[in-house]
């Protein structure tokens, strides 16, 4: 629409000049060309008007501006000519058709010719376009001023180049001087207020965005455009990315030129002061299946957490990491081509990341890393002051990296302090472009982790011992982390082996852990002392097979705990075990007699539970239909603990154990 007005007024101006010198003439011309605009079949008439004055009429069959692919038809303007001293004034109505079948667009206009200088004003509320001639006759210059043009008047035009656009709003203002020749660049100042748009699928949208800047357009072939401007306020949605711009001063500069069937953006500068600074260039083919042919990020400097809050939070929230807290500074560069990322480098300075809900965080992360899809990149290193994984504290560490043939790997073993011992990353290889499941290969080992510190960190009753182990291969496929090998715990003067470790959705909804545990020769007096359930002496062996924790709560396992070499058991422990079995004490010993003794001898002790569907299927040393023996006594007084309940709700069992450990008397039904 602005173009239509502009075209119309340029034509009018030209004809007016002619009329100024030859009033009273009927004139016609086949075509007229100026500023790349051609006007065809022009007719100008000057007729006597009703009130004695002169009526000016201008008709043109077609106005074309091929450079912008614009064609208007049936231009008609009419106004009474008012001659004043050295001035001609003509105010009237003009109309033309934007497209062949469309309704004609009408606008009021005022044209003034004063000392040979034309001043033309077009009004169509709320927009106003002023065109005024400056300079002398020999070198005339044309000033164009556009105010308050509603963008939705241009919606058809915009939709022609972006068919998905469903709605556009905002006001456009332009100040420009028309170039005196086609080779001089057109310079214009523009401002867009309250820009908003939406697309049919709603994936791209904006609201209340203000944009202002300068455009230099060189209309020679190929055309070139240079933009320097500022974004102020508003919000933008592009797919999953949602950005609320700062109210002031986000700089956006770029140059744009066509390159074969694509467009090249060069010298792109996006500067949100104190938050994010991006320098980049790109080659984009909008009609291609994958429009991004090339992207070079020369530098990206992000200050955290500001950059995260403004640009990343929407993406992080979609991935379930909306509560990530960050601090520090990240500098990066990267290259992308049609095959995806070709290289990337990042430099981290004093970066802290923390996700309290998941118990994951890292502090004082710093270093430089570089990765290349092919060839070798300079070596990098990454170090941190401290880290947290599932609330377990990891100490400071320094890691050395090298990228070769698309794999970023540790060049030497990294030793990370963990609870008095260490977690050793023996091998770690990352393949960012590989298929899912092959992106990470790792081997790790644990040495001398203090169980007293571990049990404290996990909020368990404190017990001593050491934990070690090796995981020769670690795989991550479909949100499932599988660890081959196993862990060995030297605990309670015995050993405990954990194998078949797997974590599902390790950082997602319902993290779940699977493992098989076997233990041998644990000292029961140490164990029972730790968990405060009464005293038992002897050696405990057994297993917890197919253990599965969901959200760190057990949902299924098959466990068997047994002490077959005998020992002594305290009265309180008898109570505890009785409560687990849900049965009373058999073999003729009355509770009152029991109270006389502190400890009893036992020959065998065994307890089993298969947890399934929140129900514990109980078993003991041996089963006899409905009853099972938990403790077989020895010596006098001889006790025999027999379980009667073969199925106990897991929650009930846990309650009973808690009650036993806290010393309150269990309720046995």
């Amino acid at each position, binding site marked *: 629409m602005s173009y239509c007005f502009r075209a119309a007024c340029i034509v009018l101006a030209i004809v007016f000049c002619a009329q100024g010198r030859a009033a009273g003439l009927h004139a016609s011309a086949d075509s007229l060309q100026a500023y790349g605009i051609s006007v065809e079949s022009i007719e100008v008439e000057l007729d006597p008007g009703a009130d004695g004055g002169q009526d000016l009429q201008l008709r043109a069959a077609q106005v074309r501006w091929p450079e912008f692919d614009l064609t208007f038809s049936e231009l008609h303007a009419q106004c009474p000519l008012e001659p004043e001293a050295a001035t001609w004034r003509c105010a009237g109505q003009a109309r033309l058709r934007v497209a062949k079948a469309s309704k004609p667009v009408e606008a009021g206009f005022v044209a003034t010719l004063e000392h040979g200088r034309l001043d033309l004003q077009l009004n169509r509320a709320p927009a106003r376009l002023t065109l005024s001639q400056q300079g002398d006759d020999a070198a005339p210059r044309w000033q164009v001023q556009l105010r308050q043009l509603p963008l939705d008047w241009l919606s058809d035009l915009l939709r022609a180049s972006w068919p998905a656009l469903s709605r556009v709003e905002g006001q456009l203002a332009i100040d420009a001087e028309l170039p005196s020749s086609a080779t001089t660049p057109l310079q214009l100042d523009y401002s867009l207020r309250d820009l908003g748009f*939406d697309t049919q699928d709603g994936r791209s949208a904006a609201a209340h965005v203000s944009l202002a800047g300068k455009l230099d357009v060189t209309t020679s072939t190929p055309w070139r455009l240079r933009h320097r401007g500022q974004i102020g306020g508003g919000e933008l949605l592009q797919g999953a990315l949602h950005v609320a711009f700062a109210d002031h001063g986000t700089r956006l500069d770029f140059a744009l030129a066509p390159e074969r069937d694509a467009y090249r953006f060069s010298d792109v500068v996006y500067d949100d002061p104190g938050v994010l600074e991006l320098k980049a260039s790109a080659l984009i083919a909008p009609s291609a299946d994958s429009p991004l042919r090339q992207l070079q990020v020369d530098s990206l400097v992000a200050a955290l957490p500001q950059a995260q809050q403004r640009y990343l939070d929407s993406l992080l*929230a979609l991935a379930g990491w909306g509560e990530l807290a960050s601090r520090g500074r990240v500098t990066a560069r990267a290259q992308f081509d049609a095959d995806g990322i070709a290289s990337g480098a990042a430099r981290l300075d004093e970066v802290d990341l923390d996700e309290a809900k998941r118990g994951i965080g890292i502090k004082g992360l710093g270093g430089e890393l570089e990765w290349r899809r092919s060839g070798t990149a300079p070596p990098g290193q990454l170090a941190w002051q401290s880290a947290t994984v599932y609330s377990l504290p990891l100490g400071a560490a320094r890691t050395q990296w090298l990228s070769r043939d698309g794999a970023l790997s540790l060049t030497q073993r990294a030793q990370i302090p963990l609870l008095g011992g260490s977690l050793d990353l023996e091998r770690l290889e990352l393949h960012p472009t590989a298929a899912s499941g092959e992106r990470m290969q790792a081997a790790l080992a644990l040495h001398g982790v203090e169980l007293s510190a571990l049990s404290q960190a996990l909020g368990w009753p404190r017990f001593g011992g050491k934990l070690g182990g090796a995981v020769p291969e670690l795989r991550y496929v479909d949100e499932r982390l599988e660890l081959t090998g196993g862990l060995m715990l030297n605990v309670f003067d015995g050993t405990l082996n954990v194998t078949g470790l797997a974590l599902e959705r390790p950082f997602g909804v319902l993290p779940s852990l699977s493992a098989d545990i076997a233990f041998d020769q644990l000292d029961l007096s140490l164990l029972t002392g730790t968990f405060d359930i009464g005293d038992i002496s002897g050696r405990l062996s057994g297993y917890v097979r197919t253990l599965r924790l969901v959200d760190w709560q057990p949902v299924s396992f098959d466990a068997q705990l047994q002490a077959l070499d005998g020992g002594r058991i305290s009265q309180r422990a008898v109570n505890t075990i009785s409560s687990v079995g849900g049965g009373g004490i058999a073999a003729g010993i009355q509770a009152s007699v029991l109270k006389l003794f502190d400890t009893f001898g036992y020959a065998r002790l065994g307890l089993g539970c298969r947890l399934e569907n929140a129900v514990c299927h109980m078993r003991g040393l041996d089963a006899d239909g409905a009853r099972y023996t938990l403790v077989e006594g020895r010596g006098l007084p001889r006790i025999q603990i027999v379980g009667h309940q073969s199925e106990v709700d897991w929650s009930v069992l846990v309650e009973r154990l808690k009650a036993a450990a806290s010393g309150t008397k269990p309720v046995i039904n």
Partner: protein
Amino acid sequence: MRHLRTMLLTLSLVLLAACVTINVYFPAAAAEKAAEQFIGNVIGDVAKDADVKPPPPRPPQASLLDFFIGSAHAAEPDLNIQTPAVRDIQARMKQRFDSVLTKALAAGSIGLTRDGLVAVRDAAAVPLAERSGLNQAVAEENRDRKAVYAEIARANGHPEWEAQIQTTFAAQWVQQARAGWYYQDATGAWKQR
């Protein structure tokens, strides 16, 4: 000819065995019941309005098969979905339905997908300021749903049931959808209840 007959016979036996195997081992009826309860709790009781259509009649082969494997059905274990973790997620899903999703489903801006998830159907119908939040709610809901499907399969000792559980839930979500909600048919096209 004899070869062909033997082959056909073998093939049909294999097919029959395959069909029966699936039906015997996956507790379809229990899964449907479990899904119905779970979803009923999340969506709320309004779904039991008169607008709920009766379930579509089963194809005749299915009922015939049911007849043959009736005893197997009786012996089917119940499908347990009431682990504390799943209950927590269910409560969270209900809260999300009440605060965001029910409104968005009624407005048609999101719909129920054929694979038992939710998807943004018509983002343009949502004011820009709310669109990002809705995307987030949909992503969170889908993460919860996937975890529930996987967890139910695992909790019942059959991780390989996950896809069937997801399918069963998908059908139930549509079954219990309120009038006006959009859902995807088998071809992925959006339809309105």
